[in-house]
C-alpha cells in the first residue's frame, strides 16, 4: 500500500474546515464569556481559508484521490466555492441574532462548520460510501442546530420531525444504495456506471434501487410528496438555522442528485426521468399554491423552496448537459436568493422579537430604503421577473426542457410560476405601500450591510450578465 501526501492536496479545503471547526470547539472552552466574538471571527477565517484553498487547488484536470472515494472536478470546484460563499453570508447575517439570544456559542459555529464540511464531502464524493457519510454528517449537524435553542419548544418539535423524516429519507437512500451495490458489486460511482451501461434496464434490482434512490433524493431536496418536513422545520427552527439549512444544502443536494443519478446511474436515465417529472410537477404546483395561503413568512418561504426544487428537477430531468448546467445554475442562484431573504428576516429581528409574519415586513421602505430595495430585489428574482437572476435561471431550465421536446412541462412550469409570482409580489407590496407597525431599529452591525449589498448586487448583476456563471456551470458538464 502506497500513500502519497500529494494525494491530499485536492482535499485541502476539507482539511482546513475540519481543523478550524475543531479549533472553534476548543477555543470556546478557554475564552471568557466577553470574548466569544473571537469564535465568529475564527469561523469566518475558516470559511475564507477554505474558499481560498478551493480556488487554489481548483481548476485543471479531474482528479480522483483517496482510493477513488474523492473527486475534484469542475463541478466540485464551483459548487464548493458557492457553498463556502453562502456559508460566509450565513455567518455574517446571523451574528447579531445569535448573540442577542445567547446562542453564539462554540457549538453553533462548530456544528455549522461541520455542516459545511458535510456538504463539501457530498460535493466531492466519488463513491456511495463517501456521499452517504457526507450526507449524514450534514444531516446530523442540521438536526442538532434545529434544536439548538434548548428552551424553544417549537425548535425541539421541529428537530424531532426533521430527525424522524430525515432518518426515513436516509434509510430509503441507503436501501437503494445497498440494492445497487448488490446488483453491481461496487460502491465506486464510475464502476457502477460501467456496470449499469452494460446491464441497463435488464436488471430489476437496479430499477428498484434507483426508485429508492430517487425517493431519498426527493426527501433530501424536500420535493413533493416528500416535503412534509419542510414547512414545519422552517417555521420551528431558529431563523439563522433556517438560513443555513435553506440555502447551501440545496447546492449540496444538487451535487447528491448529480453524483448519484448522472455520474452513477446515467445509464438509467429513461427510468429516473419519469420519476423526476412527477416530483417536479407536484413540487411546482403544490409549493406555489400552498405558499399563497401562508401568513408566516418562514412558512411561505418554505413552500417557495419546494416550488424552486421543482424547477431544479426540471433541469435535471432534461438529461442533457445544458439541462444539468441549468439545474446547477438554478441551485446556486436559489441558494443566494434564499440567503438574502432570510438575512433580511434576521435584520428585522431583534432581542426578544422574531420577524416571522408577513406583517413584520410592512413599511420596510420607511424604515430602511436600502434593505427594502434588496428584499424587493430578492422577491422579484424569486418570482422570476426580468432582469433579475431568478428569471435567467428559470429561462435556462425551461429552455433545456423545451429542447428535449417536453413543451407541455415548460408550459406547466410557467403557469405555476405565474401563480407563484402573486405571493412574492405581495411582499413587495407590503414593503412599499404599507405603513410600518413599529419603528424599532434594525439590527445590522458588523458588515451585515456590506454583505447584504453584495448579495443583492450579485442577484441583480448575475441577472444582467449571467454568461460567466453559466459558463462555469456548463464547464462542469462537458
Amino acid at each position, binding site marked *: *500500500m502506497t*500513500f502519497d501526501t500529494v494525494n491530499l492536496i485536492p482535499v485541502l479545503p476539507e482539511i482546513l474546515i*475540519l481543523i478550524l471547526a*475543531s479549533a472553534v*470547539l*476548543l477555543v470556546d*472552552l*478557554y475564552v471568557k464569556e466577553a470574548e466569544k466574538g473571537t469564535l465568529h471571527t475564527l469561523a469566518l477565517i475558516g470559511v475564507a481559508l477554505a474558499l481560498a484553498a478551493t480556488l487554489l487547488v481548483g481548476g485543471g484536470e479531474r482528479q480522483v484521490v483517496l482510493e477513488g472515494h474523492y473527486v475534484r472536478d469542475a463541478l466540485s470546484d464551483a459548487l464548493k466555492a458557492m457553498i463556502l460563499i453562502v456559508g460566509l453570508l450565513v455567518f455574517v447575517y446571523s451574528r447579531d441574532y445569535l448573540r442577542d439570544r445567547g446562542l453564539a456559542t462554540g457549538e453553533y459555529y462548530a456544528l455549522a462548520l461541520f455542516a459545511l464540511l458535510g456538504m463539501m464531502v457530498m460535493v466531492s464524493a466519488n463513491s456511495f460510501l463517501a456521499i452517504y457519510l457526507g450526507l449524514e454528517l450534514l444531516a446530523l449537524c442540521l438536526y442538532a442546530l434545529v434544536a439548538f435553542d434548548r428552551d424553544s419548544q417549537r425548535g425541539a418539535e421541529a428537530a424531532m420531525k426533521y430527525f424522524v423524516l430525515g432518518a426515513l429519507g436516509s434509510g430509503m437512500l441507503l436501501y437503494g444504495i445497498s440494492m445497487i451495490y448488490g446488483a453491481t458489486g461496487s460502491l465506486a460511482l464510475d464502476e457502477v456506471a460501467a456496470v449499469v451501461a452494460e446491464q441497463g434496464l435488464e436488471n430489476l434490482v437496479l430499477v428498484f434501487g434507483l426508485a429508492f434512490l430517487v425517493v431519498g433524493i426527493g426527501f433530501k431536496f424536500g420535493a413533493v410528496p416528500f416535503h412534509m418536513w419542510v414547512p414545519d422545520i422552517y417555521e420551528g427552527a431558529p431563523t439563522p438555522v433556517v438560513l443555513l439549512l435553506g440555502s447551501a444544502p440545496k447546492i449540496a443536494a444538487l451535487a447528491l442528485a448529480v453524483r448519484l443519478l448522472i455520474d452513477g446511474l446515467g445509464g438509467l436515465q429513461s427510468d429516473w426521468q419519469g420519476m423526476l417529472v412527477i416530483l417536479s410537477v407536484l413540487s411546482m404546483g403544490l409549493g406555489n399554491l400552498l405558499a399563497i395561503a401562508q401568513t408566516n413568512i418562514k412558512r411561505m418561504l418554505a413552500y417557495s423552496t419546494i416550488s424552486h426544487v421543482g424547477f431544479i428537477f426540471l433541469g435535471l430531468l432534461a438529461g442533457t448537459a445544458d439541462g444539468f448546467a441549468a439545474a446547477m445554475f438554478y441551485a446556486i442562484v436559489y441558494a443566494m436568493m434564499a440567503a438574502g431573504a432570510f438575512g433580511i428576516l434576521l435584520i428585522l429581528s431583534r432581542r426578544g422579537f422574531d420577524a416571522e409574519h408577513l406583517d413584520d415586513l410592512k413599511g420596510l421602505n420607511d424604515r430602511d430604503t436600502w434593505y427594502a430595495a434588496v428584499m424587493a430585489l430578492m422577491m422579484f428574482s424569486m418570482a422570476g421577473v426580468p432582469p433579475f437572476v431568478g428569471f435567467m435561471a428559470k429561462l435556462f431550465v425551461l429552455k433545456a426542457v423545451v429542447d428535449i421536446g417536453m413543451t407541455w412541462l415548460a408550459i406547466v412550469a410557467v403557469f405555476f410560476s405565474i401563480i407563484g409570482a402573486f405571493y412574492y409580489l405581495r411582499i413587495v407590496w407590503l414593503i412599499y405601500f404599507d405603513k410600518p407597525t413599529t419603528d424599532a431599529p434594525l439590527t445590522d452591525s458588523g458588515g451585515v450591510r456590506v454583505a447584504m449589498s453584495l448579495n443583492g448586487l450579485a442577484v441583480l448583476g448575475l441577472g444582467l450578465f449571467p454568461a460567466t456563471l453559466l459558463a462555469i456551470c456548463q464547464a462542469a458538464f462537458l
Partner: protein
Amino acid sequence: MLDNYLPVLIFILIGILVGVGPLVLGYFLGPRRPDREKDSPYECGFEAFESARMKFDVRYYLVAILFIIFDLEIAFLFPWAVALEGLGMVGFVAMTLFLGILVVGFIYEWRKGALEWE
C-alpha cells in the same frame, strides 16, 4: 470453520433449556389459585400510591450516548489492531488521525463537565 461454533450453539441450547425449563415446569406443576387480592398491585401493604413509571433524568442518556461513541471507537480499534502489521505506517497515521478527532471531542466533553455527576 463453523464447526468451531458448535459448542457455542450447544451452550445456547442448554442455556435456554435451563432458563425456560423451570418456568415451564412451574407453570404446569405449581398450584395457582389467583384471587382479586393476590392479583392487585401491592405496595408495602397499601394500595399503590402512583404509577410505577417515573421520569428518568436526562443525564443518564448523556452518559449512555457518550459511552456508545467511545464503544464504537473501540469497535474500530479491533480490526486495526489485528491488521496493523500489514497496514504499516499509513494505517498507524490513519488511526492516529481518527483518535485525534475523537480526542477533540473528549477534551470538549471533559471541559464542559459532561463527565461530572453533580
